[in-house]
């Protein structure tokens, strides 16, 4: 009897200390989603004029889908112009950490965008959820918001941030697709696409896909050569220019 109690309590204890993650998959079974990209790369060649990206997925259950696509992150400086002796010049600036150079998101239920649930906001769904920090901690909330708004507005003007979310279209009860457009001025690098399955205020599942945006062909060659052999590249540019000048002079005399 004592032995039984002991072994039972050990089993019970084991269950208690077992990490949450270990138990998670069984809980997710009913909320499973499958996601894939039509193309997991975007090739930027000399004629590149933007690209459409399609994402296809399947869900089990009735939850909502929220998709976030994020380009490579960089630190960005936002500057505010002020008047000095009549001229408008940059007077003050704020630096933001880890701003995605490209950002877009899609929702299956547009009503979510009106009042983004905290759980989704936390993982960066929606422009209000973008979590980049100011470098200096001293600035007040109002100033911070002003600069942050300016950053978003500026990005929107270059079509690198969305004005409103894209839609997630359901082909039937299970299958869905979402389309994003990547404009011609996007930075190259790795783009992370995260698909969230959201039900009753909680994220039940998440899938991550990677999209590679790279220069290919002649433009990629020029870019990498100019980086790796910058001196020879510069010299070559000068040689081509001198040659063009010489040709032009020949033609003129003829």
């Amino acid at each position, binding site marked *: 009897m004592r032995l039984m109690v002991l072994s039972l309590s050990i089993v019970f204890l084991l269950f208690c200390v077992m990490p949450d993650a270990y138990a998670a998959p069984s809980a997710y079974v009913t909320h499973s989603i499958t996601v894939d990209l039509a193309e997991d790369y975007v090739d*930027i*060649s*000399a*004629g*590149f*004029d*933007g690209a459409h990206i399609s994402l296809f997925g399947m869900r089990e259950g009735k939850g909502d889908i929220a998709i976030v696509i994020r380009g490579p992150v*960089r*630190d*960005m*400086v*936002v*500057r*505010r*112009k*002020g008047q000095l002796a*009549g*001229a*408008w*010049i*940059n007077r003050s*600036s704020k630096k933001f950490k880890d701003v995605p*150079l490209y950002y877009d998101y899609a929702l299956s239920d547009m009503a979510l965008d009106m009042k983004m649930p905290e759980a989704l906001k936390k993982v960066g769904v929606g422009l209000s959820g973008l979590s980049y920090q100011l470098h200096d901690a001293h600035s007040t909330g109002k100033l911070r918001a002003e*600069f942050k708004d*300016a*950053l978003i*507005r*500026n*990005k929107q003007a270059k079509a690198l941030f969305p004005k409103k979310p894209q839609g997630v279209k359901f082909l039937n009860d299970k299958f869905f697709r979402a389309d994003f457009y990547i404009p*011609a*001025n996007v*930075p*190259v690098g790795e783009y992370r696409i995260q698909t969230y399955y959201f039900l009753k205020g909680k994220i039940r599942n998440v899938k991550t896909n990677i999209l590679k945006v790279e*220069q290919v062909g*002649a*433009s*990629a060659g*020029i*870019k990498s050569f*100019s*980086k790796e052999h*910058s*001196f020879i*590249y*510069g*010299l070559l*540019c*000068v040689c*081509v*220019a*001198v040659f*063009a*000048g*010489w*040709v*032009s*002079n020949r*033609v*003129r*005399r003829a």
Partner: protein
Amino acid sequence: MQVYLPIAEMAVSAEMIFFVSAFVGFLSGIFGIGGGFLTTPFLIFIGIPPAVAVGTQATQLVASSTSGVLGHWGKGNVDFKIGGVMLVGGFFGSFIGIFIFKFLEKVGQIDFAISLLYILFLGGVSSMMLIESFRSAVFKHKTIRSEFNEMKHSKFMASLPWKMRFGRSKLYISALVPGSIGFVGGILASILGIGGGFLFVPAMIYILGMPTLLVAGTSLFQMAFTTGFATIMHAVASNTVDGFLALILIIGGVIGAQVGVSFSKVVRGAPARIVLAVIIMVVCFQMVAHLFLEPLDLFSTSVR
């Protein structure tokens, strides 16, 4: 046709860039100007990062000044010795200019610095040109008389060390004078992406007192090297020379210049210079307006 620029990392309309550079080349064929002061602001205006615009425009200037100097060389109108001394100053100038550019970019004042310098130079040059060409059109007299140059005989000029004899230009002056003119030109080539011809020509006539015949060829000679050096510096220091963009600019410029040169035989000097002065003034006023009118969005962003 949209073309993706590998270094600027953006797509632009190739025709638009071609036509603008051909138009600027046309003007340079008529007036013998480099035209960098028109192309660089245009490139910045269509959204090409200022650093890339300046670095790439320097490459285009190599082509146009090479073409020009070969023409003058053929007629024997280049003073290589004085050009060489200017060149030494030009190398130092463009070297320092690159770092000034990078510094201004870092503190976020590069746009302001470029606008201000352009306004000062374009405003000054266009008003001088306007006055000069009006005079010569109305009074038919020569205003450029280097033979009676006062400056080169001034006490200050005579007191400077390192005197050199420049046989071709019939000058005996301190090497510091042409050297510092080249130095200023080099800085301008690096910061503004211009050859600086509109500064060199008056400086060489009024300060050095060079024979007018030699001025254009010699300034082009030193410009070809300074802009070439600036191109390599921009490529090495900040990777801001876009090969594709340079190619379009060069082709447009060369074709435009050919048309301009054949056109220049039928246009009269003084009225044509008035037209050019007005064009420069318009560019200048546009920049003044940009600087002094309240911008639509007070905020701007850049990647650190």
